């Protein structure tokens, strides 16, 4: 071992290569490789009867995607859900994160962080099914609204609520981390210089807050965009992009078409990330 150790000590480049090869291999083979396979298979088709993949180049899948109105509608619906979930998370997370970072004493702060993190320990499925029971006909939420059938029931609205609940911690934590780095003295200085709360918020807090919010939104937006389990459990008959991908793999056994559909969220996220990169939010992750 020591021979190898001293040899590597004398050859720093070899040492670096040895250290980096495993993660690089993972990145290239497992991650980029999978994306490449996805992209290539999107141009194949499936034999409608036996379900065998026909490995011949064809634009058929993309033609269907563009010409059928239903795929546009589902894409817009998914975008709407992702945007709504992100919006709700920002509205709830910002005051909470501000309270945690700036108002609560350091003892309570730790407890609050734990309280935010504990829901993440419970299984996603358990939480979604819990919401299915909550939203059921005559369930607790119906009772809150005054009787069976008065609550929102299963559907698009329920999907947005449940996804907001599921992804809220992913929004709180980046905002909290951002605000924690803002020194209290800056808030005091702003007050000393005569700025009121609104001015302090705009001039001091907001510049720190925006990149953090964008960082959080990358999580909530992409997680909502790709979700299909919550929609299946509480979404009623709602379809999102994830459901179409799942239906084409799990039910229709049409992997190439599923791959073609899956390029939509990939494209949306690439556009989103490029736009976000300009804001400097990626440094907040």
């Amino acid at each position: 071992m020591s021979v190898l150790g001293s040899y590597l000590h004398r050859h720093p480049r070899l040492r670096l290569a040895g250290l980096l090869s495993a993660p690089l291999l993972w990145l290239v083979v497992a991650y980029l490789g999978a994306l490449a396979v996805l992209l290539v298979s999107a141009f194949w088709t499936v034999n409608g009867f036996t379900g065998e993949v026909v490995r011949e180049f064809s634009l058929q899948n993309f033609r269907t995607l563009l010409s059928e109105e239903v795929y546009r509608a589902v894409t817009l619906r998914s975008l709407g859900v992702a945007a709504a979930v992100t919006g709700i998370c920002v509205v709830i997370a910002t005051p909470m994160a501000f309270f945690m970072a700036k108002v609560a004493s350091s003892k309570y702060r730790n407890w609050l962080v734990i309280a935010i993190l504990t829901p993440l320990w419970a299984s996603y499925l358990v939480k979604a099914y819990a919401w299915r029971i909550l939203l059921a006909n005559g369930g607790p939420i119906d009772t809150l609204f005054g009787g069976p059938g008065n609550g929102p029931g299963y559907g698009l609205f329920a999907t947005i609520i449940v996804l907001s609940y599921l992804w809220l911690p992913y929004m709180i934590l980046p905002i909290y981390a951002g605000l924690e780095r803002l020194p209290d003295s800056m808030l005091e200085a702003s007050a000393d210089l005569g700025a009121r709360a609104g001015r302090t918020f705009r001039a001091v807090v907001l510049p720190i807050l925006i990149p953090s919010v964008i960082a959080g939104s990358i999580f909530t937006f992409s997680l909502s965009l790709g979700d299909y389990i919550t929609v299946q459990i509480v979404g009623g008959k709602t379809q999102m992009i994830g459901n179409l991908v799942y239906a084409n793999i799990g039910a229709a056994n049409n992997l190439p078409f599923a791959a073609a559909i899956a390029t939509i969220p990939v494209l949306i996220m690439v556009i989103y990330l490029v736009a976000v990169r300009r804001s400097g939010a990626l440094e907040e992750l």
Partner: protein
Amino acid sequence: MRNRWMTAVLAAGVLTLAACGGGGDSGGSASGPGGLEVPKIDKLAALGAGEGEVNIVSWAGYVEDGSTDKAVDWVTGFEKETGCQVNNKIAGTSDEMVALMKTGEYDVVSASGDASLRLIYGGDVAPVNTDLIANYKDVFDGLKNKQWNSVDGAAYGVPHGRGANLLMYRTDSVTPAPTSWNAVFDANSPYKGKITAYDSPIYIADAALYLMKTKPELNIKNPYALDDTQFQAAVDLLKAQNELIGEYWSDYTKEVQAFKAGNSVLGTTWQVITNLTKADGAPVEAILPTEGATGWSDTWMVSASTKHPNCAYLWMNHIISPQANAGVAEWFGEAPSNKLSCALTADKSHCATFHADDEAYFDQIWYWTTPLAQCVDGRTDVTCKDYAAWTQAWTTIKG
């Protein structure tokens, strides 16, 4: 530099895929639809000792080991007797079954008619040597060597049983009790938002069956053979029905819960789901509507790449044995395939109720069949919509 990296990665991916794409050739006779060939796969020649386990893909309620209901158990005895540990995977739709069998990780499957031929022509299942299955001789002749479980006289499985898709409703909220499929298609239904339907493209056949009886001018002869006009009419009917639907189901536990809570009060079901919902204390009934219904005739098939052929054969022999077959038939609510089962059911009138040997009755049931471009009703002057078209239409229907 970065661009070159990407190019290299992509090139490597493409090369790998191209290398993988070579296989898949198959010989055999060209007897299938559209000149499709059945891949040549040998059937098992002789039975040996069990391999210790068998992996099964089945419909809910077909493989019960007492965990759902202590009294319902035809698996534990089989495991003790043969030493084959049973690992069961429940599938919600035929498409799911085909997809699971394609993984090659399962040994046997209870395939319906809309899966069986796809599995046979896809080379996913092997012909079955029925001489090695002692109970095969007692299977109703009306189920042997049918178009969905054999090719050119070669059996590809053992018949399991058959039945109809029913209409379930909550007796406390749906009055008067429905008698027709009209109840789930009526645009002015008072149960709007509380109607459910089966979440699979094959459900289009239910709409076609309804149109067959109510719109004779469309001239539908077989709900699985739909030309452009007939198909469009069925799709339009389902798009209109979408307004009434609360949720679609393919997971049976979800349907049980929805009917129990009252989120769904009316919709398609299987007898076993009705039984489970009743057992949960919900007031539900299921009927066979006047128009008849779609249904299934299931076949146990063995994977072409099975690692446990002996346990697979032992299982197929066991599941159609009079005792087990009677158990499944009563639990799932279907007609058994073994003649001797009828004497062993707890309810002695079970075979009569489910018309076990009544071929005239089953002429009214349209077994799930894979729709093909060559119309399965024998028409040659038009092209029918194939299953791929059904699948894409199903997405459009759900919106």
